[in-house]
């Protein structure tokens, strides 16, 4: 696949705060790539640097081979869909979409043809005369997309565009966007903090935290083989335990030895062990590889979510089997349910389900980490 | 800021401050001239303090402004409270227009219209002079109240409606909820409205001119009289004092308003986060 945008060693600070720390990234033609991470991780800043609204302190932005660091936004072949749509309130729908064409002095007949085509692509034909302030959120969203695409840019930047929509509409729009991307062949660079959204829409996901890229990969890579505790915790739910890699394919944690599918670590290397809650099977205590007491059960509709205390560490298990609070149960793990990651600065910060958020954890456990 | 912007701003502000600087400098002029500065002297200020007529008109002006401020602040605040709760669109539009009129009507029309009415009514009752302190007071209240409403109403509209509701939920009657919760919330608006009314009344010339009788002279009217004769820097001294008093009042008003805005935006930020 051809590289369309390259970010090389981009760094940016706002005052004392480093927002991007030496980021390098290749973005390809016809790719749906998502920048994913919690707020403050630098994903929006990266997007704005590509769009030309911020300039990197260090590093280069290369667009189809040319360095465009100093090029202003109106000269770049990149268009943006803004988070709150930024539709011009003094223009109607037609004029909003026609705006970039009029700027380029495209002849009137062509303008009508292009705008009509765009409006039908986002399914808003017939809305041309409407005032943008009278449209619903989803409709405004689609006008914003039509306006950004009418110029046929090479790259479309989308800054958390679906955040303000309610759940069902958001799911529909996710499908829409994916379809539009496939049909137009334009590279979409999508920013979001919603990992489900990222997993469902992207060809490639870039997980970011604290101004650094943590992992780049396809959705299944990111989900099944996270490289560190941060990624493992951010995507889906994970149990993350301290372990020791005894040798290839054998790891020890929670006082037991397990067979696994990973290799390439040093003998007896301390590692982080990731086990997804849905990969844990509940069995009778006698047949279990590990045993523990169920401390709470929550009915989630799709499955039950059980918190189980095994040797002081709180596991989360998702199961459709009935589980009771207070029961003493056993669990088994298939080798492919166990994923090994190298230790990183994020080790020990996540994975124990005493609480879900950092705030509550700090309140009940001031100053202490609670692994093992 | 770009250099061209800085230069342009400097020119504009220079233009705006030129007369003020002239005023300040020449109020200390040694000689009587208003265009040639010959030396520094306090004498005009001293003369001012000895000028009985001027001091009398200062007193008049302050009394008038204070009375007008009190009446218009109370009436305006009550009006704002009432307008805020109006359901009928028609009534609300009528109120908006009526409040708008004194603010957009030129002073001369407001002045003339009131004068004509007072003269007519006076003649009706056989009075020989119909214009006096009370007619001026009525006029001042009429043009000050809309400005009070303009300051208080937005505060009412921006207030979190949940606050008085919470008070009532916890046991207050609507009246006590208003006094204990709403009034403190809108107090910055009331104060800035009052200050605005006061400064408007202090400074008013045209309307006062048309609605005043012979006995009661306010400062602006006195100044008008003074400018018809030869003017000495004494007038500049007077103007300088007025200027600084007005400035002090408005800076205080500004400060109060800013603090209130800051407080409100912090409350909003916190609400957004959760």
């Amino acid at each position, binding site marked *: 696949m051809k590289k369309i945008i390259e970010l090389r060693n981009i760094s940016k600070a706002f005052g004392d705060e480093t927002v991007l720390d030496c980021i390098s990234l290749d973005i390809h033609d016809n790719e749906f790539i998502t920048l994913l991470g919690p707020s403050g991780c630098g994903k929006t800043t990266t997007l704005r640097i590509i*769009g*030309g*609204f911020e300039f990197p302190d260090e590093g280069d932005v290369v667009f189809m081979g040319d360095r465009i660091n100093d090029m202003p*936004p*109106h000269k770049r072949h990149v*268009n943006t869909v*803004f988070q709150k749509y*930024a*539709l*011009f*309130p*003094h223009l109607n729908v*037609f*004029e909003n979409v026609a705006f*970039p064409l009029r*700027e*380029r002095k495209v002849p009137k007949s062509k303008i009508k043809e292009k705008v009509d085509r765009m409006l039908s692509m986002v399914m808003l034909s017939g809305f041309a005369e409407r005032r943008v302030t009278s449209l619903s959120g989803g409709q405004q969203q689609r006008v914003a997309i039509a306006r950004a695409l009418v110029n046929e840019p090479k790259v479309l930047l989308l800054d958390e565009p679906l955040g303000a929509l309610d759940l069902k509409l958001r799911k529909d729009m996710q499908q829409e966007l994916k379809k539009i991307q496939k049909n137009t062949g334009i590279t979409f660079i999508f920013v979001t903090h919603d990992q489900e959204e990222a997993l469902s829409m992207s060809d490639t996901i870039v997980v970011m935290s604290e101004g650094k890229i943590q992992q780049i990969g396809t959705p299944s890579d990111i989900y099944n083989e996270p490289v560190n505790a941060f990624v493992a915790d951010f995507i889906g739910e994970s149990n993350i335990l301290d372990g020791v890699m005894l040798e290839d394919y054998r790891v020890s944690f929670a006082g037991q030895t397990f067979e696994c599918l990973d290799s390439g670590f040093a003998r007896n290397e301390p590692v982080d062990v990731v086990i997804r809650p849905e990969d844990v099977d509940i069995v009778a205590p006698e047949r279990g590889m590990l045993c523990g007491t169920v401390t709470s059960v929550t009915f989630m509709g799709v499955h039950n979510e059980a918190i189980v205390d095994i040797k002081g560490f709180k596991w989360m298990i998702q199961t459709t089997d009935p589980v009771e609070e207070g029961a003493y149960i056993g669990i088994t793990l298939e080798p492919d349910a166990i994923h090994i990651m190298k230790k990183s600065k994020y080790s020990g910060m996540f994975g124990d389900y005493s609480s879900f958020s950092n705030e509550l954890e700090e309140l009940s456990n001031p100053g202490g980490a609670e692994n093992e | *800021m770009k250099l061209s912007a800085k230069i*342009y*701003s400097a020119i*504009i*502000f220079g233009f*705006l401050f*030129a*007369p*003020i600087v*002239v*005023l300040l400098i020449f109020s200390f002029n040694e000689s009587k001239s*208003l*265009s040639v500065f010959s030396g520094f002297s306090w004498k005009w200020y001293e003369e001012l303090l000895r000028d009985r007529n001027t001091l009398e008109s200062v007193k008049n002006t302050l009394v008038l402004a204070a009375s007008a401020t009190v009446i218009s602040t109370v*009436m305006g605040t009550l009006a704002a*409270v*009432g307008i805020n*709760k109006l359901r009928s669109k028609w009534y609300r539009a009528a109120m908006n227009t*009526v409040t708008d*009129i004194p603010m*957009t009507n*030129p002073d*001369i029309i407001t002045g*003339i*219209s009131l004068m004509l*009415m007072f003269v007519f009514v006076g003649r009706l009752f056989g009075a020989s002079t119909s214009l006096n302190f009370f007619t001026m007071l009525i*006029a001042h*209240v*009429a043009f000050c109240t809309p400005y009070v409403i303009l300051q208080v109403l937005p505060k009412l509209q921006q207030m979190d409606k949940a606050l008085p509701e919470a008070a009532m939920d916890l046991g207050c009657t609507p009246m006590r909820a208003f006094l204990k919760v709403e009034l403190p919330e809108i107090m910055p608006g009331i104060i800035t409205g009052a200050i605005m009314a006061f*400064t408007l009344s202090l*400074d008013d*010339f*045209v309307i006062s001119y*048309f609605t005043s009788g012979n006995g009661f002279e306010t400062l*602006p009217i006195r*100044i*008008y009289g003074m400018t018809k004769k030869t003017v000495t820097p004494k007038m500049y001294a007077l*103007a300088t004092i*007025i*200027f600084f008093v*007005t400035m002090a009042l*408005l800076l205080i008003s*500004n400060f109060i308003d*800013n603090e209130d805005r800051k407080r409100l935006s912090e409350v909003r930020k916190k609400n957004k986060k959760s």
Partner: protein
Amino acid sequence: MKKSCISRTQGTYRAALAPYSVWSLLFVIVPLVFVAYYAFTDNSFSFTTENITRFFTATSNMIQDDGTTTEVRTYLLIFGRSLKLAVISTLACLVLGYPIAYIMARAKEKTQKTMVTLIMIPMWMNFLIRTYAWMTILQDTGIINGILTKVGLNPIHVIGSETAVIIGMVYDYFPYMVLPIYSILAKLDVKLLEAARDLGCGTVSVLRRVVFPLSMPGVVSGITMVLIPSISTFYISQKLGNGKFFLIGDAIEGQYVANNLHFAAAIAFILMLILLVGMAIVKYVAAKYVYGGE
């Protein structure tokens, strides 16, 4: 029971509004009716249109600059002159004030606050004295000429001319043009400007196609707040025009001083009508401009 609770509180609110409603009716609305009443009556208060017709037909002899006398329609001339000066002053305020408002809106927050306060300072100086101060600056023996002669240049004769009056008007009403425009510009969503640049607009296009149309409500507000007072001003023309230019405001004041209340009312009445019509036109034109797309 719920119904009576609500209507009781509605009743309290209506009571709160009552003093102001009555006051406005008596002292804002009714006086305007009196203007019309006086305008259409004579000294014995019987109906007549002669005050109105006098406005349109009265003539007087005017001495031109070259010494010849011509007969002119007094009040129409005065009105034309007032209108001309007011329009020029308003345009001057707009052209000079818009850039400042823009600069202020783009400045950093602290600078903005300072600039707003600075712009308002001239308003704190008494209107009469502001005008008088300009007179001393512009006079033939005034400050500007004093500086010019010191430097060796020829003195300029500006006092008593229309230019002086315009300078005075622009000075007086400048903040009233700047503040509304600034207020709207400051609230302009920065993202809209970014979107315009994103879609291909250079700086000039952004200003022309996005900033200016969206600032129209502020511009209309500013025009209103300058045009109306400048048509009806009466002191500026006396002092800076050296008594040579009678404007409508001066005419009204003159008639009042001469105790011709009915004619004064007639002039005021006509002025009111003209302002109403004028403002309606301004608002209509602006609305068409803002929401027509392009």
